């Protein structure tokens, strides 16, 4: 068994999450009848076995000889596969970008698109792209005006107005959140 470095630990977490998901489907399908559970089982069980095998290979890379042969003839560095240039070392940057995306969503949820888009753009340009604040704000306002003209005036497609009390109909406030769960 290889030493558990951070990259391998993160891979194992991903495998675990996938296995939890697949096993939930496989186990959950038993409450359904007949053909309703056929595809969940026919797909779920082999997928589960594959994931177990992949996890085993991750923990005991000596078995990786098998994996190399199955690939399309391309050699991959074992154990970490880097795809599309993701640099595994820059975790702080990754977490920062996640935080921006999540923060943007929360802003939109509360304040709606027309307020959140300029705020997000101005803040991102200023903090991440290191553009001067005034210039960031001007770009943000320009883009937001263009969006307003395009969606609200030209296409008449209302964007989410946010959950504030209604301030300007169809633009700011008064949004009705679709329920996530019964009664919520």
């Amino acid at each position, binding site marked *: 068994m290889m030493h558990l470095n951070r990259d391998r630990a993160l891979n194992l977490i991903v495998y675990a999450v996938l296995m939890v998901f697949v096993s939930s489907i496989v186990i959950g399908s038993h409450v359904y009848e007949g053909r309703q559970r056929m595809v969940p089982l026919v797909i779920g069980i082999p997928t589960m076995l594959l994931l177990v095998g992949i996890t085993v290979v991750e923990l005991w890379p000596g078995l990786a000889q098998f994996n190399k042969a199955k690939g399309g003839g391309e050699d991959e560095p074992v154990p970490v596969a880097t795809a599309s240039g993701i640099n595994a070392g820059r975790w702080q940057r990754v977490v920062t970008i996640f935080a921006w995306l999540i923060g943007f969503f929360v802003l939109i949820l509360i304040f709606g698109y027309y307020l959140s888009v300029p705020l997000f753009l101005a803040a991102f340009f200023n903090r991440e792209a290191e553009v001067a*604040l005034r210039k960031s*704000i001007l770009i943000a306002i320009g883009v937001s005006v263009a969006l307003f003209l395009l969606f609200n005036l030209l296409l008449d497609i209302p964007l989410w107005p946010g959950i504030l*009390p209604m*301030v300007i*109909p169809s633009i*700011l406030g008064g949004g*009705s959140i679709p329920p996530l769960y019964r009664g919520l």
Partner: protein
Amino acid sequence: MIVMHGIRPFRFARTLMFVFAMVLVGVFTASCGDSEPEFPNRDIEWFVGFNAGGGFDVASRIIADKMSEDLGVNVVVRNIPGGGGRRAVQEISRGEPDGYSISIVNMPNQITAELLDPEGVDFNAISWIGRAVIQTYGMYVAESYPHSTPQEIAASSPEPRFCLTGLSGHSFLVAAIATKELGIPWNPVTGYQGSDIRAGQLRKECELASGPIAGDTLTAVNGPDFKVLWMFADERFDQVPDAPTISELGYSDVGGATLANNGLVMAPPGTPDSVLKILSDSLNKVLDNPEVIEAIHARGMAVSTLTPDTTGAAVKGMFSIVNENIDVVRERAASSN
């Protein structure tokens, strides 16, 4: 700490934020008036629980366009698909009862959905405005299908198969109740996407289909490859005049409006009667317009107006029909497993 460039950036940012806050306060204050002006005084949103392009959506747009002229405010159609139309029902059941959010809803399908999978929607508490459209369903088959009456079909061998998009929706409801009432064996073939049904019939994967005889279906049944066996109605359908009604064939229990698909217009519970009257009068005035009638008719639907009270009574009637047949519907829905 923000790294700044340029002249007095903090002051600029502070000024901008102050101005923005003042604008917000001003708008918010302005929107809290002492008293509400007369209804309507702003845009009315007309929700449709399906994607754009479908029958009810098209009818809604035709009607909303004319209601805008009549009421002097924009009546704007908003598509909020989800849950087979249930999302629109939920939106209205929880909405502000001020008349500015209304919705078209397919009934009695939503009653069926509620009985099969309760979500606490009380259709008797809903404020009904009227009926926008009504769609009559028919039973259609490929031209080569050899049987034409329910008795022949019931006695045929091998047993006929019913083509369906799925085990939900109004077509399924019609199929479930009709097969029970007419004694036709239940052999569903599901998973077709709308017009795919006719491809399935041509490939002899299934034989029977029920649906609104409109649009591409109407074109198909008036062509060489398909025919209508009967209409679930009391009166002949003028666009398919040769097709008998199910009542003529001796099954009046499933004739009339029993199995029709209704596009009823609803408002949130508690909407004041005065507001409902304004909306209902406008809706019915628009539906009296020959241009509107023609446009709706051209898309395979009919206009048959109701007042808020008669709509409520119609809903009660639909409720009792669905309730009577809910066990059959449930059994049919479980049978494909």
